[in-house]
């Protein structure tokens, strides 16, 4: 007899699963590997070097794009988290009231429309607004990003709120705390992990966006992803690998923190 009979085993499943993990990570691993290539090729290894990281860092267009990405993601994450927190407080821990379902549908709407459709819709509207007002700054991108970040910020905050009952808030009110004091001293500290998770999710979503940014941006207004998209259509040097590696690292750090915040909760 070989190993004991396991009711959970299915033949071949483990092999396919391991293969899947390998397939998911091999391309990314290769990409990171060649970021450290001394030569100009992204396929022929010529020795270890950090030169492409230095070149990417010194590249003014990369610096500018990274700055745009950062400032847009920060504004979008902050604003969307604040309004999503308010919306979550307004849509949880209550008996159903007229319009509640409508609010859910409305807030989750950006998740249901293909990105390319939202992108052309915003292109049409913002090109008009640009003509009327003459303003062509980063405001449009911030507004667009805030819009599609709201559902992502909203989901973890709402989930957290639904697990909090009203006992503590009622106790605070019984002790003559004002509604604001109750919110600041009781609700907010309890809700904080949800808010933090929502904010990080929104930040990553904004940082990663290509399609909507590509259509909304004014001329010369690159974010890191749109800059990369432009470069990838041409022949690439390991500089792209280096930028990708740093970007990747950033995402991994944020996701790891998010993962642990969420885990502590349960």
């Amino acid at each position, binding site marked *: 007899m070989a190993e004991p009979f396991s009711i959970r085993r299915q033949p071949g499943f483990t092999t396919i699963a391991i293969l899947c993990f390998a397939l998911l990570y091999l391309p990314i691993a290769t990409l990171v590997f060649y970021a450290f290539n001394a030569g100009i090729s992204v396929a022929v290894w010529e020795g270890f070097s950090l030169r492409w990281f230095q070149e990417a860092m010194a590249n003014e267009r990369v610096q500018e794009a990274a700055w745009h990405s950062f400032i847009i993601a920060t504004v979008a994450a902050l604003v969307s988290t604040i309004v999503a927190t308010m919306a979550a407080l307004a849509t949880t821990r209550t008996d159903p009231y007229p319009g509640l379902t409508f609010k859910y549908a409305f807030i989750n709407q950006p998740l249901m429309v293909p990105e390319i459709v939202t992108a*052309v819709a915003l292109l049409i509207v913002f090109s008009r607004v640009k003509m009327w007002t003459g303003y062509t700054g980063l405001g449009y991108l911030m507004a667009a990003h805030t819009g599609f970040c709201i559902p992502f910020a909203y989901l973890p905050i709402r989930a957290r709120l639904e697990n909090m009952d009203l006992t503590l808030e009622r106790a605070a009110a019984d002790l003559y705390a004002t509604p604001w004091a109750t919110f600041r001293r009781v609700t907010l500290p309890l809700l904080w992990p949800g808010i933090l998770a929502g904010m990080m999710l929104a930040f990553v979503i904004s940082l990663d966006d290509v399609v909507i940014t590509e259509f909304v941006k004014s001329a010369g207004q690159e974010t890191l992803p749109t800059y990369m998209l432009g470069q*990838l259509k041409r022949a690439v040097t390991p500089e792209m690998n280096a930028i*990708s590696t740093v970007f990747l690292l950033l995402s991994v750090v944020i996701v790891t923190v998010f993962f642990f915040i969420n885990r502590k909760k349960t």
Partner: protein
Amino acid sequence: MTDPSAPSAQRVIDEARARDVRSRWLLSAPALAIIFFAAIGPLFVVLIYSFMQKGDYGDVKPWTFSTDGWFNVLFERDLFDDTLGLAWANLVIFWRSVKLSVITTVVTLLLGFPTAYFISTRPEHRRDLWLFLITIPFWTNLLIRTFAIQEVVRNEGIVNSALIGLGLIHEPIQIMFTDTAILLGMVYVYLPLMVLPLYASMEKIDFRLVEAGYDLYATRFAVLRRIIIPLVKPGIVAGSILVFIPSLGAYVTPKLLGGGKNMMLGNLIELQFGQGRNWPLGSALSIFLMIIVMAALLVYVRNASDSGGRHG
């Protein structure tokens, strides 16, 4: 004796409730307003634009009604003799979009199902780690993942280098700028979207049912087909929808891996707002894509409520 002018208890409660609902609307107003202006409102503008005449240099002629945009989704007039014909170029792109999205969904399901099953049958304290390994590529920028695949399938990429190195082929196989490249890219990019919902429903499998199946002399395949698959059907449907919808609207992956010739619906829409200078057609195509997506979501909602009723 009760004072008739004093409010009844019921009225006080009603008023408090009305106040509560009012403040809840006020509290959610900023989020609703931003989504209205930055997402939903513009969609209505797209609908209106799809019924206008196209401008000579892009945009539309304001306040001119025309159904040309919708007409051009499927038909076109011959440039020379003005005869009516089907817009074959568009039809080819629709077909490619649907075909590649369906194949992507099937392949991710075939790969994702065993993967999700593998994760859900790990010891409980290790599952989070495996799940985390699926989540990382999911949160990695789509562009970076597409770039990674591009590096793999290029003529000088690792696949071709390896095959040449092994002496299996002498000339690199052209994978870049073909449907195969788009397919590989989409499978790679959307695989986590299949695994996550599948895992969510597999985690809940009651293995006593599986054990009962084996007690009744079921084979491994019979257990899979008659017990496991029916139990995780909601996850299969959710995963398929989650993969199918973004595949159909894919833009970045076909643009980078398919090149200019192998367009999908998303690229066709972009074209109308760029070189095509046909905004009404682009708008009509966008609404068309949205209708398909809404239909797919409807199927999903139907299915979810169905199975919810039966199992829960």
